[in-house]
């Protein structure tokens, strides 16, 4: 009996490297990356900084909430010209609410409510695994490279290439590509920070785009913590009231 067990163990060990390579489940890694970036339901504050080639900057501050895989909303707190604007995403549906206009209008993921390199999909990002499936995974020495394909035609980028830190399973760099493989923008994840509650993740995302040569946009995260919300918070009726959720 012991000989038989040893025989099977030897077979398993001898095939282990191969099995290891074949068993890398890119979708599982991507799901883990999502959870390491934020809890499934959370609130956070973000500062967006658009940096022009001259060095001039323009800043936006947003309060963001997310629930589950398909609900996310953001409220502009600053500057005054944008204050009170809110955006809502429910699956692939997106709306923008402007206080003076006083009604939510449908927007698309490719538009940008802030100008610059970030578009609405970047600001109202769902879990990567909710929008993309991993077609191929490169297992490098210190990184996984996840080659992702959009699950539907309505997402902003057809393909993503996600360089992932193998040890911490958080992104290092994401290339956003068209179906034909043309680079639209690159996100660089930097400055890992302990947000508390077991959330340790990059606190800064720098973005560059060949479409905006010499421009850069930066997203800085703060106050990221797990929080539960009622589903009704993620409706167009509630968009004018998002500020009431802030404590």
């Amino acid at each position, binding site marked *: 009996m012991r000989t038989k067990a040893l025989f099977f163990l030897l077979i398993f060990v001898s095939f282990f490297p191969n099995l290891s390579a074949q068993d890398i489940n890119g979708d599982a890694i991507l799901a883990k990356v999502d959870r390491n970036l934020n809890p499934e339901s959370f609130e956070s504050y973000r500062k967006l900084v658009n940096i022009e080639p001259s060095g*001039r900057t323009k800043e936006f501050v947003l309060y963001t909430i997310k629930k589950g895989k398909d609900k996310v909303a953001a409220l502009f707190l600053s*500057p005054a010209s944008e204050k009170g604007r809110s955006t809502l995403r429910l699956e692939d549906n997106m709306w923008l609410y402007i206080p003076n206009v006083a009604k939510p209008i*449908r927007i698309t993921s490719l538009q940008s409510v802030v100008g610059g390199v970030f578009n609405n999909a970047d600001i109202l990002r769902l879990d990567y695994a909710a929008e993309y499936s991993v077609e191929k995974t490169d297992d490098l020495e210190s990184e996984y490279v996840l080659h992702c394909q959009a699950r539907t035609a309505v997402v902003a980028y057809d393909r993503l290439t996600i360089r992932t830190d193998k040890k911490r399973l958080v992104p290092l760099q994401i290339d956003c590509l068209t179906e034909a493989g043309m680079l639209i923008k690159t996100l660089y994840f930097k400055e890992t920070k302990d947000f508390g509650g077991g959330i340790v993740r990059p606190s800064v995302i720098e973005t560059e785009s060949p479409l905006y040569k010499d421009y850069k946009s930066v997203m800085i995260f*703060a106050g990221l913590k797990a929080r539960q919300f009622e589903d009704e*918070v993620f*409706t167009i009726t509630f968009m004018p*009231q998002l500020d009431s959720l802030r404590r």
Partner: protein
Amino acid sequence: MLLFLLVGLASGRAQEYEFDPEQFTRKPFSLDGYLELKPSFYRLNPDSPFYKLSYYDQEPRKSVGEAYAAFLGDFSYRKGVFEAFLEPYAEYTLSPFESTAGIELFQGYLALKLSPSLTVYAGKKTLRWGKGYAWSPVAFVERPKNPSEPDLAREGYWMLTADYTKSFDGPLKTFSFSPVVIPVSGSLNGDLGRNGGLNFAARIYVLFLATDIDLVLSAGKTRPARFGLDFSRNLRSNWEIHGEAAYYRDLKRQVARPDGTTGTEEFNAASFLVGLRFLSAAETTYILEYHRNGQGSNSSGIDAFYSFVDLAYESYLETGDDARLIEAAGLGSYAGFSPMKDYGFLRIMQKDPFGILYLNPAATVIVNLADGSASWAPEVTYNGFTNWELRLKAAVLTGGPGDEFREKRNRFRLEFRLRRFF
């Protein structure tokens, strides 16, 4: 020295990405809004009926410069489940014709936020129903929208209203019900009817199969029944389609007759709108709409009005009696933003052209499809300076004699708008 420089660079970099959200802690009181200055130049159309109606007692002019200043404030105070909100609007127009000043309360209400599912509002509030960009036939409880400036804030009505919302899993994601009670008495909501009484309206909103759908109705003592529906849906990540349809019963309006008299017309009307919004790969946004205005006049009706004004003006020149001109000015159905039946709308907006961030050129064309007259309005907006918005806009009105846009008060307008947000 090198170490000092490196430390300095490192600390400078840390500073660059510093963000303390504490400074954005929610406070019970907030004050926001904007100040606006808008100098304008008009090339006038002294022979047009609307010029005669506006300036019959003034020295005729071919052009005029005006300056406009405005203030819009949003004051709010929150305590627990209560919120008090005030939105005053003040304006001053400096004009060689007549300088005017005014102040209005656009909104002023108390909100009781019982839960994310239920909020009750009492006071003066703006409700914006409909999915159309330039027009909204189902906007039963709001003041008319100017298709040339559809995003401008507008005055609300006094009302009691509530929003009840429920979310679901499955093809029906959201259900929302918004009942509205609008009292009319004297100056309270006076433009909704001369006699006092209560009006009721309601909206049911659903997000069903990724489509926004609203069912709306309105009826009451001072306004006959009207009902409608609208929808909006994304076809792809860069295509949106929307539409509205409304039916109005027992409408009444004062009309000019070809024989130079006026009378009252009673009718039912149906209006609808279909529209598309498209974002190209070059980040150009196109908004295209067709509006069938069932309440609008046909060409013979508007011709009768023009003749009525011409006769009234001739009578004024001969006798100095402006009673007929005042009567003509009271025929409000001809003086609205879109007084006729068939309109097309196209707006093209380019984001960050030539790589210039925050620069947004746009052009808007509104066409009366029956007579081919049109308003052509190019503009360029820049909001690269934090809390400032600069806009230069022109409008050229084209058409033949008797056509709608040819007979407006002016033929050309150039304006510069400066807004400072606070």
